[in-house]
């Protein structure tokens, strides 16, 4: 396919995650380590769920496509559940590490807060999940081929990129909300996050009916963004302050320039 497809899809899928990495993670070594460890945990969950799916697949009749599709769907949901389990496990590990860091620190506080760790862990999950979904597809866009030659959708690449972006952002927000729920022992929050993850994966099962999968997923992304914003300590007051400060600043700049 063309270079435009490659670059377009790459930037759509990985642009935000990459910029978040550059601006918020890259300068702090501790955050980089937490990010990579988060990716590792996600990989472990994927490994285990693939193992289960593989065993189920080998144990069943390979010819029967209905059974195979059913097993694949089971694999999807099992993988989602396992991801959330590993997210919880990672939360426990980070809490322990945080206590350790605080204990040896001079000021009795750890150099990194739980909210920051939640964000970094979510980003780690998001980046590796997006990479595993998208990289092979991206490398295919560099080679020759005709999209949808057998009657499949023409929009395979762009919808994959959009879905990958949504999943990456969702993983970040789920991470923040999940950790917050664990911190405050609000178990209903965790249940809602798991259900939303299952819902998003379920919606993706509607593909290639993209109208049924992409808009709802993005709606959920926006909702999760708002929820994560409030869960990590944001408020409408903060937002209004931000805007008034910005407006004040801009007005001052204009006055200064005019003078």
């Amino acid at each position, binding site marked *: 396919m063309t270079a435009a497809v490659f670059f377009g899809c790459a930037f759509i899928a990985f642009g935000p995650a990459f910029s978040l990495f550059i601006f918020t993670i890259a300068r702090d*070594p*501790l955050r*980089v*380590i937490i990010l*990579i*460890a988060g*990716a*590792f945990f996600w*990989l472990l969950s*994927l*490994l285990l*769920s*693939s*193992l289960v*799916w*593989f065993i189920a*697949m080998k144990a069943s009749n390979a010819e029967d496509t209905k059974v195979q*599709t059913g097993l*694949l*769907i089971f*694999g*999807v949901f099992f*993988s*989602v559940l396992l*991801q959330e389990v590993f997210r919880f496990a990672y939360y426990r590990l980070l809490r322990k590490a945080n206590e350790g*860091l605080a204990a*040896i*620190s*001079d000021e009795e506080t750890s*150099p990194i807060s739980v909210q920051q760790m939640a964000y970094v862990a979510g980003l780690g999950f998001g980046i*590796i*999940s997006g*990479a*595993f*979904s998208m*990289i*092979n*597809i991206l*490398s295919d866009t560099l080679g020759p081929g005709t999209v949808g030659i057998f009657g499949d959708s023409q929009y*395979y690449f762009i*919808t*994959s990129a959009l*879905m*990958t972006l949504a*999943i990456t952002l969702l993983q970040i927000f789920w991470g923040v909300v999940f950790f917050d729920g664990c911190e405050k022992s609000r178990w209903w929050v965790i249940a809602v996050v798991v259900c939303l993850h299952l819902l*998003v*994966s379920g919606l*993706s*099962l509607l*593909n*290639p009916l993209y109208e049924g999968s992409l808009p709802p997923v993005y709606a959920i992304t926006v909702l999760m963004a708002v929820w994560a914003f409030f869960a990590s300590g944001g408020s409408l007051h903060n937002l209004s302050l931000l805007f008034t400060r910005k407006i004040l600043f801009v007005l001052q700049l204009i006055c200064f320039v005019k003078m």
Partner: protein
Amino acid sequence: MNTSDSEEDACNERTALVQSESPSLPSYTRQTDPQHGTTEPKRVSEGPAAAAERDSGPVPDGEDEELTLKYGAKHVIMLFVPVTLCMVVVVATIKSVSFYTEKNGQQLIYTPFTEDTNSVGQRLLNSVLNTIIMISVIVVMTIFLVVLYKYRCYKFIHGWLILSSLMLLFWFSYMYLGEVFKTYNVAMDYPTVAMIIWNFGAVGMICIHWKGPLQLQQAYLIVISALMALVFIKYLPEWSAWVILGAISVYDLIAVLCPKGPLRMLVETAQERNEPIFPALIYSCKSAHPSSEVHHSEDVILEREEAEPEVQTHRGQNRSYSAEEELEEDRGVKLGLGDFIFYSVLVGKAAATGGDWNTTLACFVAILIGLCLTLLLLAIFKKALPALPISITFGLVFYFSTDNLVRPFMDNLAAHQYYI
């Protein structure tokens, strides 16, 4: 004012948690030299002197340890970056230059048994035999090196290493350049190539064996490791490569941790003599101020490419430096180039076979996490540790499981556009 020792100790970047007490005599702290990882021996200084230097009262344990842990995280990143760069170079080359994935039957003399056999059993047997031969060659050479060192044949060692680095910097890079030109169909004449290779090689020899800007030296070390890894990827047969990777991690473990292990004996001999330990090819990342000259009192000498991941390096007599220079200079971790090479071999082979990027990514993450864990263990145990076993184990586990289990799963998901 004896600031140098205390400053050095106070801000020592070990990845280990520093002991707050220090012996009264300045001595080289050998026990924190990890074999395949990190730290240079630092001079331990008096506690009170250290306190005075830091402008605070008695230095509390916590501050020391927090500083060390912060620097510990920094060290991990200082190692992540070069390891990642080396792997990126190797993967990029493998994916674009087909020369390094073509098997035309040529093999190294260290792996004489062919894998072109009819039965699986025969192939397995051949790969195990190849591994045995390769590991024995490595063991023999290490022991030879230890013997040379024990009997103070320094000139011989230096000569050997200079010869090896000459071969790498000139011959292997010439081959590499040739293959890149062939891949991209670039027309090139011999005089230009001679100029390029001559400059590249000469500057490399100077940087590595004598003096040079730190970053240039680091870049050359990364390039050499990548070249070596590419040679291994090309010339090691498929199954032999995997078995060798496994075997060399085990050997690394034994050689570094067993009391009679050759590498450990090397360390102890150097310790007894209180001199720069036999310097092999070591990558050192110092968080020195960019403008300051970093003096290498030790020679970083190239090791024969067949030799195993060597390691220690002992910082020489640094008394001539000012306190700040030593402060900045000594913040460094060192990792043997053999580790770079074998990490890159693993990731390169993952990239070479199959063309699946997920496997490569998984191996990459696994190796980085292994490195992280190794450095954590270093912080806990404060002694020489091998850097290969954990990373290679994780890498191998992830390679085989991703290739066989995750790949069909993700392929199926991608075919239906299901997302997890």
